[in-house]
């Protein structure tokens, strides 16, 4: 092996490159040496594998649902294509002929199990929720009232029967 190549490999520049601590000049030198010398290329490939093995050894499995969190966060990012400024055109005579204005939503052609609704609907949902609680409370109240009334009727019937049984004797 060429002395220069040996020195280069043993200098630790390749390791610095793979640990992200090499300077821009060193990075260029590594890439250049790699192209020129097969020994450097070989060492480069071996180190590449070592760093990957190290990464796998220190890996921590992400908790289930982490991908969904990433997905949900990314769904909120909608990048728009940069718009070039258009030269001014007097459109005052044509505006009536133009197509009706488009809705202020971006049409996204994709499959998704979620839907988006206007924020104003939250008050409707809150009202529905509160009303449902009121109806539930009322239902419980009337059920208890009804049960009490039935018990009273049963009691009165029993008293009536007892009274009818005692009357003939007297």
């Amino acid at each position, binding site marked *: 092996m060429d002395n220069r190549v040996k020195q280069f490999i*043993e200098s630790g520049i390749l*390791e610095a490159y793979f*640990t992200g601590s090499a300077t821009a000049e060193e990075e260029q030198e590594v890439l250049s040496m790699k192209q020129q010398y097969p020994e450097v290329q070989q060492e480069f490939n071996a180190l590449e594998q070592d760093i990957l093995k190290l990464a796998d*050894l220190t890996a*921590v*499995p992400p908790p289930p649902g982490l*991908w969904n969190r990433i*997905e949900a966060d*990314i769904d909120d990012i909608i990048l728009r*294509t940069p718009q070039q400024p258009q030269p001014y055109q007097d459109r005052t005579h044509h505006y009536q002929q133009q197509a009706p204005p488009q809705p202020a939503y971006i049409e996204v052609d994709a499959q998704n199990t979620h839907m988006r609704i206007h924020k104003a609907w939250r008050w409707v949902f809150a009202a529905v929720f509160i009303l449902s609680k009121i109806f539930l409370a009322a239902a419980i109240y009337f059920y208890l009232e009804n049960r009490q009334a039935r018990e009273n009727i049963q009691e009165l019937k029993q008293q009536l029967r007892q009274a009818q049984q005692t009357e003939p004797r007297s």
Partner: protein
Amino acid sequence: MKSFTNNPHALTKNESALRTIFNRYGAALLGYIAGVVNDRIKAENYLIEIFKHISRFADELILPGVNTWLRLQQVAKNFLYKSAQPANSVADSKLVSPGQKNKCLNLLTTEQQHIFCNIYYGHKSVQALAQEMQKDEDDIRRCLREALSVIRNGQ
């Protein structure tokens, strides 16, 4: 997944590229970030932020000839260094304390651990570390080489 961009071609390429990167390197990246910040919850949040960041150019990271892991690590280092500074410096010695990361580091000498951790996890340059340790830059690189060699043979 619904949308990264309104360019349909970029959308499809980035979606699948990001998923590929997550499946192959998600755990490795989470382990690396956890090694830097020493906090699992913070590491998960950083991972989400990093994936959000790379979602715009994910397809470039898996092109042939690109070392995906190296690029991911660079992105993560830059991201963590910017996000964590100055309130919670990633380069803080507490955050890159050796010996806690994994069994590999226990194979190294104290000096090798110090150099490896500060460079690999701490985002320090060889020059900065050489100045800090009052050593020659070549010695730092050689020590780093030895450390990686020990880890390689210890596996």
